[in-house]
């Protein structure tokens, strides 16, 4: 029980360093959101795994038409984009905005390459007779990987927004955390892809 009252305004709590935990609100929000995303992908991956071993009535099994070397290369491209994302963050934290912009753009380009690879993959699968509606597996496969592709696309949009902000001088070093938060999202999407690539493409009993 205290009788002293501090007659000071509440520190502006939306600024990162005044919060109860010391973590900024924005970063904490991104972590919470990614926690939620885990269950979103968890649900889709589970559905795919449950349907993977069901007999297909029509059309090929999706595991028969994978092009593993091709997808390995595009997976490598996506993983490298995590590296460039880290370099972008390092750049802006150092105050080297030109380099930060280059790496942000590179990250977006690598992500776009991955998405382009996915579009190519989908097209070639359809040509081989595996449409979205063909069988149980194809619906589950396209939905899961397509959902991931949309996440990458949203990441690219965020990266391009960061690039534009930086170009206009609206992304100073004090706001490096913005890049870090986009980076969190980007790395999460990459980690999910590692899981999807392993479970969906590489392991099929």
């Amino acid at each position: 029980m205290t009788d002293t009252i501090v007659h000071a305004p509440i520190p502006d709590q939306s600024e990162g360093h005044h919060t109860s935990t010391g973590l900024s609100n924005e970063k904490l929000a991104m972590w919470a959101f990614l926690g939620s995303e885990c269950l979103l992908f968890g649900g889709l991956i589970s559905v795919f795994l449950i349907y993977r071993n069901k007999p297909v009535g029509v059309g090929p099994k999706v595991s028969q038409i994978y092009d593993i070397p091709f997808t390995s290369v595009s997976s490598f491209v996506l993983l490298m984009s995590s590296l460039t994302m880290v370099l972008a963050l390092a750049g802006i934290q150092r105050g080297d905005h030109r380099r930060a912009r280059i790496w942000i753009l590179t990250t977006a380009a690598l992500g776009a390459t991955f998405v382009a690879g996915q579009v190519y993959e989908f097209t070639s699968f359809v040509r081989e007779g595996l449409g979205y509606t063909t069988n149980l597996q194809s619906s589950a496969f396209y939905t899961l990987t397509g959902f991931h592709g949309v996440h990458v696309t949203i990441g690219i949009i965020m990266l391009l927004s960061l690039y534009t902000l930086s170009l206009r001088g609206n992304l100073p070093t004090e706001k490096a955390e913005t890049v870090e938060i986009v980076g969190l999202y980007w790395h999460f999407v990459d980690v999910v892809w590692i899981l999807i690539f392993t479970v969906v493409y590489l392991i099929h009993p």
Partner: protein
Amino acid sequence: MALTEERPLLELTAGDDEVRQPLGSFRRPTSTTGWRSWITTVDHKRIGILYGATALTFFAIGGLEALLIRAQLAQPNGQVLSPERYNQAFTMHGTTMVFLVIMPMLAAFANYLIPLQIGARDVAFPRLNALSFWIFLFGGLFLYSGAVLDQIADNGWFNYAPNSGVLYSPGHGIDFWTLGLQIAGIASLLGAVNLIVTCINMRAPGMTLMRMPIFTWMALVAQFLLLFAIPVITVALFLLMFDRLFGGNFFVVQKGADPLMWQHLFWIFGHPEVYILVLPAFGIVSEVIPVFARKPLFGYPFMVFSGIAIGFMGWGVWAHHMFASGAGPVTVAAFSLSTMFIAVPTGVKIFNWIGTLWGGKLQFTTAMCFAIALVSQFTIGGLSGVTHSISPSDWQQTDTYYIVAHFHYVLFGGSVFGIFAGFYFWWPKVFGRCLDEKIGKIHFFTWLIGFNLTFGPMHVLGLQGQPRRTATYADGMGWNLMNLLSSIGAFTIGVGFLIFIFNVVKSRNNVVTDPDPWDARTLEWATSSPPPAHNFDISPTVSSLDEWWHRKYELGDDHKLHRREHPESFTAATPPENIHLPSPSYWPLIIAAGLPFIGWGLIYSYWLAGFGGLLTFVGIYGLVLEPSVDPDAGHHGHADTHDTHEPEPAAVVAGAAEAEEDADQ
């Protein structure tokens, strides 16, 4: 160099005057009164009121649907509704009450109270908070917009596949349902992220986690449940939508789909949802009972940890909704056990409430009556729940009125009674006006009798074998009397609701001058009623649980409690000067307005979806690029030269983009 000191990024025109017009399209809203101030508000208190008012409106709609059902069933071979309409009535009743009434009412309390109870100026992301409300509202409107075209879902609130597939439900009713709930789900998800960050990060100095008021704690646990449960139902809704709109095969049994897939996905969400609906109501009565028992809450740490335990265990009991589905003996045995176990932390709560009441100087205000009713009625509902955990018994009860009786005892007798305890308790805080106690008592007893008359007989009907979701029953089954009593009870509840509305209207003249009329315990009572926009004139510091009570009372030399003459509250004679609150904004409304167009577009024409998507997309950029504090707005008369905080574009873009993507696909 903050972004706000420069020209906004997408500023189209030059000139000092236009700088405050983001995207060159509107002038920033500045009004503090009138309808415009309400649609642009980012104040957590006003958003709380908006949630509450919307939920009460949907409560009236869902209640009318319930009355239709009871009118139909009052007598054998009822002719009030056709079987098709009857299916629509119980589907929309359940969906409305769960998603558009109890969830937003609890969101109303959480929004209004959490920042006040933890001594904060607002939630962590006030503008995102406004966005959550508008998305919820448009989701609800979208869900009901199908009714205009006579496309109404008719498959029960859990909407089992494959019956909800195109083959068995060829109309668009189910599409309105799946899309509407996806939109509402975005609102819940954004709200959960916002309130979790608020509870973790925005606490006043000294407000440790174990000093947080119990309502805030229970609401926090419920937000975590939402955070992890909403994505699961989103997956289910999303797959069903793909099945129906784009020819997917997830629930098409003819193509080999697992007929239990939907049930698992739905109930993995659905059981945590039950605790989402009831835990904050537990929190409300845990605030009300100590105040009117004149005692601190008995076993506060046990209350906190039992709430957390319920939160965890709630994830391990979902298959008890599926005992009759042929899930197999091991599954049934495991889920029977876990269901019995989850009764333990709930029992801890019941005993702690009794412990709080024991030996207290009880004051039977209306709020207290509702709170005690929750304790008793939830206990009845909880016990009938335990009977379901015995799976042989459950096989007899499943799909009968016994189940209907059970979940109405926990959700109406529990959640809704708790919510109304909250209304009577916090009404003077929110509006500075008291609800009349005498009329309140009449309301309470009307509901107490009406509720038990409606749902008590359903136990008997269920054990006699009357099936749920069946439009009529034949004469001579022995069900006539109980059904008639139940229908009379339902209309009694309807009358009770009208009494409540009358009380609300009448309360306009019932101004209370004391900001703390109940002699309450927590921080929200330490400021004026209604609180100012900035909540507290003086920054709160906290040194104990029930901080406000400890400021009011001290232990004298005679070892008795004495009330201090002038307890130190957080109101000041002169309003403080340098408080920066986020400015109102149109953008949350615009982002949310795009979403129903995406929904209609997916059903009828992709052009509409494109329009909606564009609206939402532009809205997201508008919101992110608009400075959260209008640089031109006066802050209590001093020039603002520093710390106009800009929300991180990344977090908002990510959140909102995710929102868009959920709806886009």
